Structure formats: C-alpha cells, structure tokens
C-alpha cells in the first residue's frame, strides 16, 4: 500500500462522538445538574446534584424542573447520582439530616452556609428557634436573617429547616409546600407541634426541672425526661436564671 493509501485509511478512522457526550460533560463539569426522584414523608421529591454534592430538594408535583431552572439559572437532566451517594440520599431524607452525604451550598453567602450547617445538627423530633441558630452561628441578633435563610434553604428535608421555629416558639412558615407540611413532618418525628404551639401562645419558651434545676428548649431530650409534677415553665432565659436554673449543656438555650 502506498503512503497516500495509508493516510486515506487512517483518515477513515475518524468518526462522530456519541450523541450524549456533550450532556455528560455538562453534568460532570457542573454546568448542568442531574436529578433523581426519591420518596419522602411529603411524597415524591426531586433531588438534584452536581459532582460536589446534592444541590436542591423540591416536591415533585407540578414542574420541578422548570422551578429549578428559574431559581438556579441552570438546566437539570435526569441522571444517576454517584453510586456512593445513592443510599445516603435516601437515608438523609428519612432521617432529616445530611450525615456523610455531601451538600453543595456554593453560591450562598458564607453567613447562610454557616446557618444551614448549624440547622443540620438539630436532632430529629426537636426544634430550635431562629434566635438560637443566630447565636450558635456566631451572629447573635441575626434572627431575621436566619428566617430568610430558612426560607431559601435549597435542600429542605436534608438540612432540616422544618425543625427551626419562630423566636417566640410558634411553628412558623415552611418553604416546602407551606406550614401544614412543617406540622406534618414535626408530628411524624414526634415533636408534638400542637403542644409546642400552645406553650408558645401562653408565652413560655423554656422548660426546667425542679429536681435538676436545669432549663432547656421544650423539645430537648432532657426536657422530655421531666415529669409533669416537676416541670417549670419560663418566659425567658433571664427569668429561668433568676429562679436559679442553669442552662442545659445539651440544647444550650
């Protein structure tokens, strides 16, 4: 074969790239997010992700893809999350905590990321007020900003903003389909939102034990152990302190 015959044959080895190469590059580079559907206590949810972690959780009803694009300015395509995350996503939705599942909060301010990381530590079945999150995140007095951070939480259920309540103790708003979903989640987790709301309406924000002389958030594990006969209710931390009660080391009111 002549050299020109060889080069002609080599040229014929060129072909076209697979049709989905561009798509898979866009997903792999994080230009486009992938999504998968999961079951949750609130029904089917759309979970989106990029190579850094989970980027959003939304109810599946209506047009979640359209809502995602409008909110984040990126497209979403159906995809499989990395195999190491698949079980972790289901577990995070079930427990209401990220655990070791990576969550990508890039694009949010440093402040909001800090708030969300604190919110992620609130145990299942318990609630904490905005004002507490502000203090824990190192920005006391930023309770309002905490409220708006919860309203913009991109990963509800996984970062459990349903466990964050108003500073006066009332249950408050919820971004994922409205307050009835927050009540439903808290009831499911055993947090008894009706009882909490009653306590808040009566003006009480903390409870203490006459025997241990320790005061807590009403849903703290230690608060749950107090028998009705020894239960004291407090309107503020100050009134608890002046009655000679110490702060609980677990829930740090």
């Amino acid at each position, binding site marked *: 074969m002549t*050299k020109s015959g060889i080069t002609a044959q080599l040229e014929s*080895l060129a072909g076209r790239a697979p049709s*989905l190469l561009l798509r898979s590059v866009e997903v*792999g*580079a994080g230009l486009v997010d992938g999504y998968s559907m999961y079951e949750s206590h609130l029904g089917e949810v759309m979970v989106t992700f990029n*190579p850094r972690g989970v980027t959003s959780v939304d109810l599946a009803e209506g047009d979640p893809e359209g809502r995602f694009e409008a909110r984040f300015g990126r497209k979403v395509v*159906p*995809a499989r999350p990395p195999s190491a995350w698949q079980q972790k996503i289901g577990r995070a939705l079930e427990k209401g905590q990220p655990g070791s599942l990576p969550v990508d909060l890039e694009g949010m301010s440093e402040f909001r990321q800090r708030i969300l990381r604190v919110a992620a530590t609130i145990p299942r079945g318990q609630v904490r007020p905005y004002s507490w999150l502000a203090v824990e995140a190192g920005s006391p007095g930023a309770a309002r900003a905490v409220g708006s951070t919860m309203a913009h939480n991109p990963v509800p259920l996984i970062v459990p903003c349903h466990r964050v309540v108003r500073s006066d103790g009332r249950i408050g708003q919820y971004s994922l389909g409205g307050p009835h979903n927050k009540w439903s989640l808290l009831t499911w987790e055993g947090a008894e939102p009706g009882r909490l709301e009653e306590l808040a309406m009566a003006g009480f924000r903390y409870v203490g034990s006459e025997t241990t002389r320790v005061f807590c958030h009403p849903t703290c594990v230690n608060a749950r152990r107090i028998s009705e006969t020894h239960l004291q209710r407090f309107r503020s931390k100050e009134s608890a302190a002046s009655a000679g009660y110490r702060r609980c080391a677990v829930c740090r009111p």
Partner: protein
Amino acid sequence: MEALCSRLATDLERSFPEVVRRFQNEIFSGLRTLAGADAEDLAQETFIRAYRALQEYDSERIRQLRLRGWIWTIALNLGRNHARDRARRPQVIGLENDIGAHDPEPADLGAWQRRLAALTPAMRKAVVLRHVVGLGYDDIAAALNRPEGTVKADVHRGLERLRKQLEMET
C-alpha cells in the same frame, strides 16, 4: 478560534459547550484510536478537566491559549495515565434513561490499533494526531510539547513503518 477564546474569557460557563461541540468528534476519534474501549469516558474527562482548568485561569491567559493544542495535551495525558487515574477518579454522575446514539466503529479499527501499537508512543501519537485527527504540525508540536521538526520526522517515520508492516501482512 481566537473569537472562541475571547468568549471563553468573558463568559466561560455559557461558551464552554461550544468547545465541546467543536472538538468532541476529533477528541473522541483520536482517543478511540489511541486508547480503545474507554474513549467515551476519556473524552468526557478531557473536557471536564479542561473546564476546571479554565476556571482557574485568568482571562488574559485564556485569550492567549492555543486552544486546540492545549485540549489535546489534556486528552493525551489522560490517555497515558488512564489506568492510574481510574482509581482516584472523582464521583461520576451517569445520565439516566438513555445511552444515546453511537456510530458504529470502523470495521478495521482493531487492525489499525494493532499496527499502531508497534510504533513508539511518540510516533503513534504524532501519526494519529496528523492523519486521524487532521491536526496541523504546529498544533501537534504544542500538544506533545516537542519541536515541530521532530514531530514531522516522527509522522514521516511512523508512516514508513506502517507501510512496511502492511507489506509483511500481505
């Protein structure tokens, strides 16, 4: 190409898909000839790495890039470190529902891969970049980081060896 580089410098996110569209056929074909079965994964990884690198570059550096040769440098490094990198590759997201359309492989691909395997790595890359991909010698020199004269000589001698091999086959 300069126009594309300046678009990349001003809006990387929006214009990067154009880089993929422009080079995907040649990167895929070249890697398929050189690396074989994993060409699709390697091509995907090439563009993802290119994107991540461009994110780190300042706009002046992007404007001055010799884009085609630069992307080929990434692709060839990946092809070479293929086995080693596989273990530490980042988490992969797979597309759902669809594996997309794949053109059939050329019937004689395997035969040419065997013939090319007999060349030195430098010759093999130079021949593939010149005659399968259709790159100019200046871009090949940039991609392989070798002088243009050396690259030309490699292509020439590579073709000569292929010719001799074909003679022996018949």
